[in-house]
């Protein structure tokens, strides 16, 4: 009996693990495979989107960032299309002009995108900080 019980516990454990794996896979396949849309894609599909949530990726347009009472207001662009983002909450540490960001939220009433989550989508290039040659004292 002891042996049979152990065996069934293992079988149940295996099934549980398999179910978890399938659920996670399901989440991936249900639209999350594309983690974000470009600004152009998001603007084009705006009519069909309605109030549902989406993620938009783009670069923060320099000079467009203004702090508001609830968060921050800025423009993001993919080079072709630019959209205004109204964000509620604190932006992440690496948020600044030209930073590649992914904003999560929904289209607002006006032309802007209401975001409540900003993620920085950094690249795969790494390098030491450059010495600012304009400000550094010249040697010669």
């Amino acid at each position, binding site marked *: 009996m002891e042996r049979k019980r152990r065996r069934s516990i293992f079988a149940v454990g295996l099934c549980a693990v398999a179910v978890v794996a399938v659920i996670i896979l399901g989440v991936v396949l249900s639209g999350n495979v594309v983690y974000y849309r470009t600004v152009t894609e998001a603007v084009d599909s705006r009519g069909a989107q309605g109030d549902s949530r989406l993620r938009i990726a783009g670069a923060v347009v320099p000079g467009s960032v203004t702090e508001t009472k609830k968060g921050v207001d800025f423009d993001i662009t993919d080079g072709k299309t630019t959209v205004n983002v109204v964000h509620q909450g604190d932006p992440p540490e690496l948020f600044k002009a030209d930073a590649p960001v992914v904003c999560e939220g929904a289209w607002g009433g006006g032309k802007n995108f209401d975001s409540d989550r900003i993620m920085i989508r950094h*690249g*795969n290039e790494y390098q030491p900080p450059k010495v600012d040659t304009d400000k550094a004292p010249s040697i010669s």
Partner: protein
Amino acid sequence: MILFKPAVRRALGWATIVALIALALFGLWGAPPDSIQGDAQRLMYLHVPTAWVAYLAFMVTAVASALWLWPRTRAMVWDRVAGASAEIGVLFTALTLILGSLWGRPVWGVWWAWDARLVTTAVLFFLYVGYLALRRVPAAPDARAKRSAIAALIAFADVPIVHFSVEWWRTLHQQASVFDPSLKANITGVMALTLWLGALAFTLLYVYLLDRRYRLAALEENMEEHELATAIAERQAGAGTPGPATMSRSINPELSQ
């Protein structure tokens, strides 16, 4: 019963310690901080090597499983290597997920994202936890080795999916820096050196752990055989009916561990 001679194993152990100390020194002080991410980027020197070891461990499990399934090379050594390597692989997949999460928080701004790279890695973790559970299901050694080997080959299908997920789908996770398909140098100088040092240190650690785990598996099997032999001898010596304790011990290998 052992993978390496004791002298080789000791040398490997010392080489691992030296490499890990060198990695700590280079990772924390030798390498410059990243121009954008600052010091947070230093987590790369742990995150990338642990991910590499996870891939390597599952690759070894797959190859060993194939060698067990192939009749000409079938030997219990391959079953033991497959099991030992998968266990290390699960450990390093967990480390990769944890270190990645710690890196993601300061840089991305979130601990976790449901993007393809992160989710396929989590699936990889659960697949091999399932594989380890399957290995624990009591069965005759040959039957267990066979079903484990088949499961290992199926589970390995996720490894290339994890690796290429950042190329196939849009993810929050960045693309590969070292094995970049365009062969562009995305990381250079001391930073690249530190990354390679990390890969070396963790590969040495993997080989050392594999040897130790293999030895443990062999000793466990020995003990089971020994206890089985003792139980049979006891039964033959005593003319009466065997006690229930002796019965269950000799039948169920789980109880004798």
